[in-house]
């Protein structure tokens, strides 16, 4: 402990509060709207599967977002769907991070040596599979219902979470590796090695803290992609299964009702997906810019 005090300091807590651009502000507003709907919406709306007695009622005082073809309140379903989509996206990104960050750290620390080569070849193989095609293939083989793997039962929701996570691993791992490659060149890492700090403590205790900001910015950006991907899978009937709503399966159910004049049924969940994905991307972009500015300083 005494030794580490005289060592060069690692660069922690570098992200300062930046001046935000108009785009980032817009993104923040969109993101807050989405989070309001996803977090508060389900608390104030009724049950998402309850029937109201009105089939395809237009938005109005009685039903803010209108009703669907099974007489269910669309506000309740959209809010619940947004919550489900957000949870699935966050869980998918979280699962991707849990696997990718250690892999990227190890690959970066041993940059150019065999552990790096091994990890990178595996990631490249994984990255060669387009995320969506990969997900379609796996769900096509295992089916949309529950899958039993030994004693573990994977529900359709869990499968979507895992597939999204697996698809994200190469991206997160690459960012982690790149950041780690930069960090291992820093003096404090050499100093820690010299004083005999174990390798795992250098990686997990010091480098990890410094590579997290760019990785988390990436993760934030990919939540938007995950919401979009989950929606696409559920739209095709391969993701979240009814009666549980998700933004994608609400939109999937709505196809065909546009012609019957129920424009709200497609437009509203579609707009929510748009707001979520653009919100996450613009705010993620803003965070990325802030990080770059900090790095330049």
């Amino acid at each position, binding site marked *: 402990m005494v030794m580490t005090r005289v060592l060069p300091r690692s660069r922690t807590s570098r992200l300062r509060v930046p001046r935000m651009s108009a785009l980032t502000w817009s993104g923040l507003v969109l993101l807050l709207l989405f989070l309001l709907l996803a977090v508060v919406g389900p608390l104030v709306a009724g049950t998402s599967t309850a029937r109201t007695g009105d089939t395809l009622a237009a938005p109005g005082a009685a039903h803010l977002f209108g009703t669907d073809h099974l007489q269910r309140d669309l506000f309740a379903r959209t809010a619940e769907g947004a919550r489900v989509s957000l949870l699935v996206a966050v869980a998918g990104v979280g699962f991707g991070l849990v696997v990718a960050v250690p892999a990227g750290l190890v690959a970066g620390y041993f940059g150019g040596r065999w552990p790096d080569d091994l990890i990178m070849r595996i990631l490249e193989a994984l990255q060669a599979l387009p995320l969506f095609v990969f997900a379609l293939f796996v769900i096509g083989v295992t089916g949309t219902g529950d899958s039993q793997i030994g004693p573990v039962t994977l529900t359709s929701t869990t499968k979507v979470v895992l597939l999204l996570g697996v698809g994200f691993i190469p*991206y997160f791992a690459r960012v982690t590796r790149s950041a780690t490659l930069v960090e291992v060149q820093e003096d404090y890492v050499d100093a820690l090695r010299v004083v005999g700090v174990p390798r795992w403590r250098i990686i997990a205790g010091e480098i990890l803290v410094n590579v997290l900001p760019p990785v988390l910015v990436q993760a934030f950006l990919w939540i938007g*992609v995950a919401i979009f991907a989950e929606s696409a899978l559920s739209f095709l009937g391969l993701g979240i299964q009814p009666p549980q709503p998700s933004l994608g399966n609400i939109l999937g159910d709505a196809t065909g009702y546009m012609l019957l004049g129920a424009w709200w049924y497609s437009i509203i969940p579609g707009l929510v997906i748009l707001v979520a994905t653009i919100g996450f991307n613009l705010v993620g972009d803003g965070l990325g810019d802030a990080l770059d500015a900090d790095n330049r300083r």
Partner: protein
Amino acid sequence: MINHNMSTFDRRRFLTMTGVLTAGALALAACGTDDSATGGAAKEGKKVETITFGVVSISDYMNPLTNTSKRVHWITDPVVESLYTYDASLKSIPLLADGEPEISDDGLTWTIKLKQGVTFHNGDPLTADDVVASLTFVSNPKSTSDWTTFFAYYVKSAEAVDKQTVKITLTTPFGVLRSHLTNLPIVHKAFVERTDTTMGTGPFKVDKVAQGRQVTLSRNDAYHGTKPELKGVVFEAIPDPATRLVNLREGKIHIMTDVSPESVALLKQDSQITVHEVDAPSDIITYFVANKAPFDDVKVRQALAYAMDRKGVRDIVYAGTAKIAQGPVGPAVEGHDSSLQIYGEAPDYAKAKALLAEAGVSSLEFTLMVTSDAVMKNVGQVLAEGWKQAGITCTLEVLDFSPWVKNWASGKYQMAMTGFESGFGGGRTAVTVLGPMSSKNPLNFGYKNDEVDKLLGEAWATTDDAARVEACKKINGILANDAIMIPPVYPRLVVAQRKEISPLDEKLMGVSRVSLPPVHSV
């Protein structure tokens, strides 16, 4: 510096894609709501020589001997013919057969003479060998044909006595064979096992098969019966109901099958379109695994039946086009009992709770396995929500048809539900619906009722149609009381057509057939 190139590229591409998709969706929405598209295509007074069907899907296997689904039979019906056919009152009359069959006194041998001068589309004459080839194929349980349900184990052998005479030997008296022979297509012996196309003796022949997308038929000028005026028929696979509807209103197709219930009202407002709603063997079939808890107890099944929201399914899912169901046998099928009145339109939750209490079940939870088509998913959701009001928790398991069938055939379900047109295979008989209720049927999972077994034996054995109807009616009543098959409604066959072609024959729709109109001009 950290390399963000890959992720930045992907993000930008993603944002671009989002923008393009949004713009595209709005453009499509704008196109879809354009009312000016209504009914424009067909010119008044112009004779329609080729009619186009818009169907949900076209099977990759264009062989009517392999399955009994509408995906094949609506397309192959004009191409192939059966030994017997339906007259205007749906009575079975000879078509390829030359007169009535000779049935031996013990009922085990049927001898059928074939009509002279009938030829296949390639010019080959119809012979007993062709009929034997078709019958042998569908009687072989290993052939994996849907038709084995109707023939295997009952038909011992089929043999050609001479070029124009077929002898069918049965393992047991099997009077319902007449109905099966009225539905079973006879194909050219060289085409029995082919899956890419088919050849029959019908008024149209297969010209082109674009697998899964389109099938084109052209007139058979050597047809042995009344030659059609139409030059051709095209079947287009248009899976999305809204797209099918737009195509019909624009006149790009003449006949639309599988009209979604919610669009019936809209189509009825279109002066260019006629909507046919007909009682047909369009069944919702429900199965329980009745030898395992909780559904081994009749009271639990009855509780579920009493708490079933039939009215909700009829009004919400079928937009009022279906009829409230009592037993498994619907109004277009032999054995339907219109006087049967056990379950009300609205759920009786109090009775359901009382029955559950009698059964000693404090909280009923089960999984309902449904097929993934929109209608079944909707029916499942409405039922689950209704049962919830009675304190019953129903979890839906939505599966594509193949895994659904796999689980169903192996008994891996608690309650299963699907819908299909059984008329192609079973005609008006209740074989498809009631068959699995026999304790000897491989698809029966635990239901055993000696009286049902006895009545089923009698129903399939007799050549007396009235006796069969009576037996099936009794079985229907027993099954309804035992709540072993509890369809919520009897759906109707709904087909829409443009008015510039002659009206479709609604009588024939009663056995799921969509006949080709004889004349097609205004």
